[in-house]
């Protein structure tokens, strides 16, 4: 058998391509074994276009914003002509500002209430109760839930104002509570309900997919042992979809934390009782024109998001090594 490419010495068979790789598993080979034979270089090429866009239109403005956060930059007025670097003044001002702190507290309520409990909870409940349904009921429910998700926010804001209106809102008409000022007496509850309504679709779809990963046999084993629904959820379902729960909570918390839509319904009011951080920033940056201060608060929000993400990763991401 004639060899065409490798050297004749049989003791160094394969030297043509793998001399560097011999007995040295750590050395990267020219081609890395991945399914499509992509290799690092080509993989880089695949990532590049997206990365360029991200760096240019995401990272650069983000860094710029972080820089603005240490200045007293304003959109108009004297500070616009000649912004000064004020160091961490904005940050100390924000942290010392009662309005910021109450806003943060409201935001946390908003995230906990509408994202964690509302969207994730309701989304899971819907996915769970529809898990083995395939009829028109399922399609109608899913379509409505998804409709709430895809309609533009400026439109849905009007819908909710119409729903919760004090004088002739649909809700009051239904509940027989004329004059009940939902948006004024319970502003946070209202925007929490609103955001639950608006964003449940994502969780529903995610959990719908996740529940398909729970082998029916596991649930049935628990049922045969006599486990109640709650016990099944706790012992079988949750451990199985832990990763999905993590993704879900991470994304929806992030999105909810930065969601500005409640502004369109309550405008942060009454008396800032629903002024969550994005609304606060909007008022500071756009109405007040204090861009430097707004940027600083944005960066604080980023840090808080980071903390939330880390908390999630800690509590939900652990025990992974143990399972392997």
């Amino acid at each position: 058998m004639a060899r065409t490419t490798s050297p004749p010495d049989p003791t160094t068979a394969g030297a043509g391509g793998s001399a560097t790789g011999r007995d040295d598993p750590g050395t990267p080979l020219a081609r890395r074994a991945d399914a499509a034979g992509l290799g690092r270089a080509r993989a880089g090429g695949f990532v590049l276009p997206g990365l360029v866009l991200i760096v240019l239109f995401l990272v650069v403005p983000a860094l710029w914003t972080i820089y603005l956060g240490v200045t007293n930059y304003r959109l108009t007025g004297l500070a616009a002509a000649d912004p000064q670097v004020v160091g961490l003044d904005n940050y100390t001002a924000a942290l010392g500002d009662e309005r910021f702190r109450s806003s943060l507290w409201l935001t946390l309520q908003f995230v906990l209430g509408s994202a964690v409990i509302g969207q994730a909870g309701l989304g899971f409940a819907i996915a769970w109760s529809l898990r083995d349904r395939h009829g028109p009921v399922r399609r109608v429910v899913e379509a409505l839930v998804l409709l709430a998700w895809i309609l533009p926010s400026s439109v849905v804001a009007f819908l909710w104002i119409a729903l919760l209106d004090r004088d002739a809102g649909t809700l009051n008409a239904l509940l027989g509570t004329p004059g009940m000022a939902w948006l004024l007496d319970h502003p946070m509850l209202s925007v929490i309900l609103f955001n639950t309504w608006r964003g449940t679709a994502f969780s529903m779809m995610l959990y719908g997919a996740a529940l398909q990963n729970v082998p029916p046999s596991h649930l049935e084993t628990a049922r045969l042992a006599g486990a109640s629904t709650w016990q099944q959820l706790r012992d079988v379902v949750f451990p199985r979809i832990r990763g999905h729960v993590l993704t879900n909570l991470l994304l929806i918390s992030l999105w909810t934390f930065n969601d500005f839509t409640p502004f369109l319904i309550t405008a942060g009011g009454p008396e800032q009782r629903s002024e969550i951080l994005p609304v606060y920033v909007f008022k500071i940056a756009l109405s007040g024109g204090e861009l430097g201060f707004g940027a600083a608060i944005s960066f604080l929000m980023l840090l808080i998001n980071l903390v939330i993400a880390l908390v999630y990763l800690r509590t939900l991401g652990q025990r992974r090594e143990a399972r392997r």
Partner: protein
Amino acid sequence: MAAITLRRLGKVYPGGVRALDGLDLSIADGEFFALLGPSGCGKTTLLRTIAGLEVATEGAVQIGDRDVTNLQPGRRDVAMVFQDYALFPHMTVEENIGYPLRIKKLPRSARRDKAAETAAELGLTGLLDRRPGQLSGGQQQRVALARAMACHPQVFLLDEPLSNLDARLRLEARTFLKRLQRELGVTCVFVTHDQAEALALADRIAVMEGGRIRQVGTPVEVFRRPANTFVAGFIGSTPMNLLDAEVAGDAVVVAGTRLPLPEPARAVVADGDRVVYGVRPEYLDLHTAPLDDALSGRVVVVENLGSSSLVSLDLPGGDGVAGVGLQVVVPEGREPELGSTGWVVPRAGRSLLYRDGELLGADGGGVVGSGVVGAGATGGGVVGGPA
């Protein structure tokens, strides 16, 4: 420990699939019973209906002397082992085994003792702190068994428990399972699509097709006298040869060759009847020299079965009809050359005749199943389902 009685059991899935079609079946107390059949025949559905995981749309299920048709699965006192074992990946072996007891609200220490005890019985001591992911397939299967055993159910239900094991492990697990069941003496219903497994393990076998039972009997019965061509083709590590034939006097003509008419069928056939002649490859003898009254054909494939070989021959079609295949098992050292001609003679008393797919001259004249309880069974009435 309890007998299981199914009466007119039917299950129609919401989509309209009739997965069980009016089944009648009795499984004796302490019996090792196999449900065998091709994919989609309703084996799993039947097992799950016994477990209560599916709700019967008609008929009744009785376990021991309780009618459990409308009982929740958790209250039927059955344990089930699933094909994928359904071990909870986030729990240790000990927690897995103790899980049913946890649901029954036993204290932690009692659970631990019970788990350790059950694990010891199944040779799992030392693995108690591992998680399922750290176990081999065979070990996983035993943990699943241990979990099922831990709560001492009346009935064990097993859905293809061996099919996820690799070929070698499967054999070991099979012997192990049989021993275990014998020792526990618990009623055991076992689903498989592998006839070898059913033959090797079961006291009795129900062969199913399309939601109905086609034959119930001991392994020997279903192997030697399949009640119909369906069972004949399904049972046996190599399927039975089923050849078109015609009755001619006291002989039957197969592919132009006259073979003796099987004894039990003699009374029910007439001259000129078109029948199917069935004979297992194991019950054929292959000769390399010409022989009278032997089927002869060309050797096309020889497959090594270990200490024997499976030889496929092409029989020339009689009267210009297209040829048919015939399979013969030959012992070691007697393999013919590929392409050579072989002469095949059926062993006496091992051939069967079928007409319209049903065995001719079966005991009881056409009723599937038998009242005879298999060798290992300890009693209980057996009712064959009307096909």
